[in-house]
Every structure is written in structure tokens, then in C-alpha cells.
């Protein structure tokens, strides 16, 4: 059995089920209690679980992540909510120099499986509140970095993160909390914290994407299908460890690749995917890989300017047309 629920409800269910299953699971963050969370994921939890387990913290991201890391070292399973990924930069010392390092640096003596929830996204919030940094975290060995798109992935990954032994950056997106999808009816529904997934099959072009980018890819693919262009969509889902083999496998069939991301193009996740695919499927590429990413500017407040920064359905379609228009096999060599 499965139910059609939102990303937000999938997260709520995962957190609630794991809290009920293990009393050492606690939630902590700014305004997650009385306020209910900036994106209302934890609304009502305070009444249900009390202040011991729903901990409103000071506005001190480094402190929140660092103390949660210590709780995890001590046998608890804290889930940190950092209001947005922009603010996670204040915690980067604890994430990169501490949580990600402890298991290795101390020779496997202990782990700190802290789960850090944070949200990318935008909506006329200007330069410091509209960014996404999954590439920063996915660069670091020792972290698992998930950036799911579907409600099922949100739920399954969260439950796995809380049962696993590694620190997890769990990156949500403020613009997809209301998106819906099927979630299995199973209290023990978990998903491995690795692996990409082919979500739509097609022969003409592969689109690699994650998080909100997945929904843009679906919209683009539906429109292109009307013209007879069939896109294969690979949802990356987990950015570290990253499964590029599934993308390569798809490219061996379609011979063309478009990557969609909301980060800046330079040194983005798309750069890594492009590099990996030329290593794994160079001979199968019929066109240069196209990266649909954000404009390289701090995000402005103005609505039209802001929209011009980020990928949208039309930019994905344009990307697909670009790779379809080129064919290395017929290009003349000058």
C-alpha cells in the first residue's frame, strides 16, 4: 500500500516514526518548537514530545551543529534543523572540521552520526538568503549528502539517516515542500543513502538533476514529448557518495546529457557530473554536455531579475535542444 502525500508530510512522518522508535532521537534548531519550524515541518511536535526532545536553540548555527555532534558522540540521535542552507555556512567548521572528520581522524574509534536538515530555495529574499551549497558539502569525504526530490526519498532517506552511523547533510528545498508523491505505507520504510535513480525513460537525451531540478526536468520532458523528443531523467538523489554510473549507463543509450542545478555553474555539482561522464562514457557522447545552472551573480531581490537567475522549465528545454542540435559525428573538422 502507498499513499499520496507531500514532501513536508513525508518528513514529518519520518521524524515522528523515528522519534517513537528511539527515545534518543531529538530535534533541535531555531524556532522548531513553539514556532513550528520556519517551513512548518515540526509544527505540533513540541506539544507531542515536550521540550526535552524538541529543543529550541539559540541562533548560533556553529553551536547547534557542534553540540549536536557531541550528542551523537554520546549515543543520542539528534536531528538539527538549520533554517536555511545560507546559515549553514556559520556551522561549516563543525560540519567539515568536526562531524566529517571524527571517525577517520580517531581511527574508527567512534562516529558522530548527526543529521543536519537544512533548506535551499529562494523567493525574493535577495543575495544572502537565496543560495544553495550542496557542492560545498558534497566535496567533503566523511559526509553523506542527500538532496531528495520525491516525498518517498525524503522519508526513506531521513529514516535511514537516523538509523545509520554516518553524519548526513540532508538538504531540502523550500519550493518543493508541497509537492506530492507516493510513499509506501510502512513504518520501517528506509532507503540506502546512495544511488541515483532513472525516473523516466527516454532515448534521445539524459537529464541529470536533483531536488527541485527534478521537477523542472519532468515539466520539460512532458513538453518535449509532445514533439516526439523523449528525455531520460536521472534523479541523482545522493550527491555524496555520488552514483554517476547510472548517468553513464543512461548516456550510453541516449548519447547526450543535460545537467540541471540551482547552484552557480562554475565548480558546481554539474561540473563533477560532466567530468565523471567524460571519464566513464566519453566514446558515447554525441554532443558536449550542457549544464543548465544559475547565472553567476549574487541573487537580486527584484522578481524578474531573480527569476532570470535560476533554471526553469524553458531553460531546461533550451538545454535539451542545444545538445540535440549538435552531433560530433557529423561535425566538420576544420
Amino acid at each position, binding site marked *: 500500500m502507498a499513499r499520496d502525500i507531500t514532501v513536508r508530510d513525508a518528513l514529518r512522518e519520518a521524524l515522528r516514526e523515528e522519534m517513537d522508535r528511539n527515545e534518543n532521537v531529538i530535534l533541535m534548531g531555531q524556532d522548531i518548537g513553539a514556532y513550528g519550524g520556519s517551513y512548518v515541518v515540526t509544527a505540533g511536535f513540541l506539544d507531542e514530545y515536550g521540550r526535552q526532545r524538541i529543543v529550541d536553540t539559540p541562533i548560533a548555527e556553529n553551536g547547534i551543529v557542534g553540540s549536536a555532534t557531541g550528542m551523537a558522540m554520546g549515543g543520542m540521535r539528534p536531528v538539527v534543523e538549520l533554517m536555511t542552507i545560507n546559515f549553514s555556512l556559520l556551522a561549516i567548521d563543525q560540519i567539515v572540521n568536526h562531524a566529517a572528520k*571524527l*571517525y577517520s581522524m580517531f581511527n574508527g574509534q567512534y562516529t558522530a552520526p548527526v543529521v543536519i536538515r537544512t533548506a535551499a530555495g529562494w523567493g525574493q529574499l535577495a543575495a544572502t538568503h537565496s543560495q544553495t551549497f550542496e557542492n560545498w558539502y558534497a566535496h567533503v569525504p566523511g559526509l553523506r549528502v542527500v538532496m531528495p526530490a520525491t516525498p518517498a526519498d525524503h522519508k526513506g532517506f531521513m529514516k535511514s539517516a537516523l538509523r545509520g552511523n554516518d553524519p548526513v547533510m540532508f538538504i531540502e528545498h523550500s519550493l518543493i515542500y508541497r509537492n506530492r508523491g507516493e510513499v509506501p505505507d510502512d513504518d520501517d520504510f528506509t532507503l*540506502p543513502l546512495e544511488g541515483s535513480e532513472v525516473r523516466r525513460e527516454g532515448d534521445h537525451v539524459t537529464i541529470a538533476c536533483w531536488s527541485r531540478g527534478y521537477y523542472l526536468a519532468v515539466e520539460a520532458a512532458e513538453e518535449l514529448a509532445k514533439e516526439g523528443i523523449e528525455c531520460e531523467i536521472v534523479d541523482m538523489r545522493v550527491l555524496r557518495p555520488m552514483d554517476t554510473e547510472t548517468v553513464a549507463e543512461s548516456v550510453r543509450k541516449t548519447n547526450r546529457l543535460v545537467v540541471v542545478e540551482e547552484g552557480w555553474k562554475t565548480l558546481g555539482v554539474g561540473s563533477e557530473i560532466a567530468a565523471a561522464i567524460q571519464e566513464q562514457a566519453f566514446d558515447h557522447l554525441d554532443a558536449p554536455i550542457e549544464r543548465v545552472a544559475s547565472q553567476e551573480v549574487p541573487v537580486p531581490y527584484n522578481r524578474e531579475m531573480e527569476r532570470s537567475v535560476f533554471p526553469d522549465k524553458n531553460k531546461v528545454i533550451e538545454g535539451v535542444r542545444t545538445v540535440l542540435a549538435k552531433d560530433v559525428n557529423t561535425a566538420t573538422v576544420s
Partner: protein
Amino acid sequence: MASTKKSRTKGFPLEKSDLLDMYRQMYLIREFENSSAEQYAMGKIAGFLHLYIGEEAIAVGSIKAIEERDHVLGHYRDHGYALALGLDPGEVMAELFGKKTGVTGGRGGSMHLADASKNFWGGFAIVSGHLLPSVGLAYASKYMNEDRVVLCYFGDGATNAGAFHEAMNMAAVWELPIIFYCENNLYGMGTAVEHVSAVQEMAKKALAYDMPSMQIDGQNVIEVYEKTKEAVEHCRSGKGPMFIEALTYRFRGHSMADPEQYREREEVEQYRAYDPIPLFRDRLLEEKVVTEDELEEIHKAVNEQVKAAVKFADESENPPLETLADFVYADPITVR
């Protein structure tokens, strides 16, 4: 971790075997550090090597005051805590040598000693960074009703960093069983405390968080023991955190790479009069707790132990390169 017997040596809060054990530990740390400096000069130890010489009374006196279940976290000048907690000197020296037999298998080095089985979570080398995980361990102790106190050491330099203030605030607001143990040796690397801290007495910084504090003589191992004991009892009784400022002095440079151009030789000589080891020894002799012969026996045994530690480290193997990727993730990864 003092013996539980009620008997006390006259003039001291501990019995003779504990006192001799503390003396032995202080002397062990001193000789271990002298020896590691030599090994560094010979090229056997690389990277950064921060010696604890001059500060031995703090690690030894304070660790004597806690129980085995209590947590210890320290900064990168961490050899003293490791040895006072009873880590094997050979395995500690082997870690300095980067060997497979080292306490962290050659992965951590001098700055990252640890033994989770002794609740010694590590030396941590990002100044002030470990104060936050320390707060989390104290939270876990309270949440899980474990009655464990966290002993978190750091230097005066750490008190100017943001993480210090976030940690102090959280520990106070959550009333956690943690002792913030500030070893004030008057210098953050090569910068004198008065140039970088608006407040000269570190204990005053606790006032901002309504946290009780004490300033103690870090060169007097008995005072360190007694005051730490008080602090531990304060934390155990559920009264929340405590801040201790232990006044001390580092007799050697910040690290082996330090040419020490920021302080006068006379100043160092002046402080050498407060060497915690002769101070303790003289007191033990004056109070007739020990004889010169007994001390000599301790010295001989420790010297042998340190010699053996170096031999063990030197003869140990390097970690095999095939293990390079071990311990990056605790759970398996199958994707390439």
C-alpha cells in the same frame, strides 16, 4: 580517579599512593615531552608538536578528580591528558611517530590522541571547536541520566573565539554538567593575552553567562585536584556548568617550530621558579610523605618507561597503505 579509601595523608587530601601516582604522572609527562622533543629534532616526529612542559599539574590534578565514566576533551597540546588518563606511553609515542600501533593508528598524530574506551574523545586542533561537541556530550549525559561530567580543556586563546561563547551560553542555558577548563598560559601561540583579550582574567568571561567560576593556581597539583573536585561535585549535583581558569605557563615554545621571539628569556626563567614538579616534590619531601630514595625509584622507572616507549614507537610498523580508505564512512558504500 583517586582511590576511594578514606585514609588521607596528613596535610594532603589524598593518601600516599595517590600522591605518588600523581607525582609519577607529572614526571612521566615531563620526561615523555623531553623525549618527544628529542625525537622531533631527530626527524622521527613530524608536523606540529606542542609540548605540555610546565603545565603538567593541570592534567594530572584535574583528571585525578574525576571518575572513569566522565568525559575528557582537550585541545591539541594533548599529550598530558592522554598520559594522565593512563594511555600507554608507547602507544602515545607511536602515534607521534605516525605508526600503526599509535593510539589513533597513525591517522591523528600528536594533536589528535584519543581513546574512546577511556572516554577520552580527543585532542582537537581547531581552536575552540571542541567546546561545542563537549557541550553535546554533557547534554547526552543529562538527557540519558548517565551522571557523567565533561572535562573540557582549552587555552586562553580559545576564549576569544565565537565557538567559546556559543558553548558557554548553551551549557548555561541548558544547565549542563560540564567544566570549562581554561589553561591560561598567557599566550595564544605567540601573542600575549593582553593584546587580544579585552578581559585579562579569563574567569570573568563566565560572568556573561551567569556561570560560577574559579581562578586557581595551575602550578599547584593539589590545589588543582581540590578545586576540580569541587567543580565536579557542583556539576554532579545538577547545578550546571562551572568555569575554571588555571593560571599556568608554558616553559617551551608554542610548538617545536616556535623561535620564541615574542617573550623575554628572563620572563621564562622567572616562571621556571613555579615549575609544578619541583614544587610538588619539595612539598612531598617537607611533609615527609616520601623519601629521596622513593622519588629516585619513580624517576628510574619512568625513565625506563619512556625509553621503552620510544623503542616501541621506533620499531613499530607504519600503517599499511591498503588501509588508507578505512574509516571514512561507518556504513558501507557500494556506488563507485
